[in-house]
């Protein structure tokens, strides 16, 4: 399988990444290279093998349900571009 320039544009849009035509071509070549690796992997017969959800074969550790965090809003908001009344401000989002 190989990606077309249109496929790359669509992926870039979904990822909110702006690509110039030259970058799009480079990215397309790189992605196709990665897909090439995957094609090699897919050649391996994995019938009857349960897919792994993670590269490490251990299970999720759980946390007790306790509130451990305190208010650090002032510190966090000191590095935010814009805040008001405790809110982070962003360009208007219209549905």
């Amino acid at each position, binding site marked *: 399988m190989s990606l077309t320039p249109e496929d790359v544009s669509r992926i870039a849009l979904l990822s909110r990444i702006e690509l110039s035509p030259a970058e799009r071509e480079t990215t397309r070549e790189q992605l196709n290279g990665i897909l090439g690796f995957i094609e090699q992997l897919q050649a391996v017969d994995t019938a009857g093998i349960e897919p792994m959800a993670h590269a490490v074969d251990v299970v*999720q550790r759980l*946390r007790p*349900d*306790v509130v*451990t965090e305190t*208010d*650090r809003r002032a510190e*966090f908001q000191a590095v935010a571009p814009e805040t008001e009344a405790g809110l982070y401000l962003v360009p208007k989002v219209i549905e």
Partner: protein
Amino acid sequence: MSQWEVVIGLETHAQLQTKSKIFSGSSIAFGAEPNLQANAVDIALPGVLPVLNREAVVCAIKFGLAVGASIAPRSVFARKNYFYPDLPKGYQISQFEIPVVQGGGLSIRVGEHEKFVHLTRAHLEEDAGKSLHEDFHGRTGIDLNRAGTPLLEIVTEPDMRSSAEAVAYARALHALVQWIGICDGNMQEGSFRCDANVSVRPVGQKEFGTRREIKNLNSFRFMQQAIDFEVQWQINEITEGRAIRQATVLFDPDTGETRAMRSKEDAHDYRYFPDPDLLPLEIGDDWITEVKAELPELPQAMQARFQADYGLSAYDAAILTASRGMADYFVSAVAAAGAANAKTIANWIMGELAARLNKNDTDIEASPISAPQLAGLIQRIADNTISNTIAKKVFEALWNGEGQTADAIIEAQGLKQITDSGAIEKIIDEVLAANAKSVEEFRAGKEKAFNALVGQAMKATKGKANPQQVNELLKKKLGG
């Protein structure tokens, strides 16, 4: 003119009643000032890692057990990728291919008609923050307190065939999640939110029509209105030759209309993949057994028990187990007044009490008359201290707080039933003497005249005579 069949599936987001967030140690208490409960994980600072809250998993197991679903021995968290400022990571942690709860279902009732709604799945995920679109000089304000609140998303099969069935399912689910204590059910605060997938098809057609999803229905009334409007809209579109396009729509309560928000991104656009920050969640049989032991008796089991132990009808048992509050009230009243009075208690709860609560827009949990108080009243009916008519008076007095117990009110207001037959006979004699015309009419064969005489006797005792006794004594006197 073809007949249309409505097809509805519901997706419900229930906020889980934990203390902390699903992947961080921030509080999830409602109503804090903006961003005071948003820590480094919730605002997605680089380098942070999610750690799963054990209690959120317990809630999911409880739900799975309550709906007869299978609990996945191994489930996987996935990233659902999309961009929106109230989702600072750029993805929501959810479950996709292997959810924690699979299958199961809920019995619902619409009038006398019962139906089983199948569940597809229920999965754990995190809530997003909130966007505030007003008042920030053309900017949007972001509050991330809600970001990371644990949610259980409960998805049905497209089993419902009318707005009434959809509402009945939503109500049953709403009652169940509160019953098992995993969600507070507060719809105003957004703890329980429903999305409805609605389509129509000509009766007899096998394939489903194209669906539109109505988002964020936060009341049962709006759900009914929104679905009814949407169904009519879809039928009109198709009848006029326009195809339905898959879309997400919003319901506007002011106009009662639904309108398209954006064309629905297909599932592929979310580019789900297993979250490398989280390992598979394993739930062993021993853990399930442990959670099962903590579960309260479920509504269906309780219904069956009420029918078997107290001889209640299926309908009455269903009403009394429609909410945890209702069931607790009934159980506590029966404990106080005895099982022999269970049927009377049921009638009073569903009749007088329900009507009063409804009229005053009060929940049974906040009833001015407590279960032991109602039990006390019903015991006095049972032992003939008061008649049903007087009991209504005592009920009224209890409701208004005129006394602590039925006994105190009966005593203070002199409402004790007159059962002394000598006293009743004396009153009947007086009534007969004063109503010679009715007596004549009765003797002439007018049955109605008898009732008039009973009425007069009851009136003369201010309703305190035992009506049965008055009947018998009066019959005897008129017959003799």
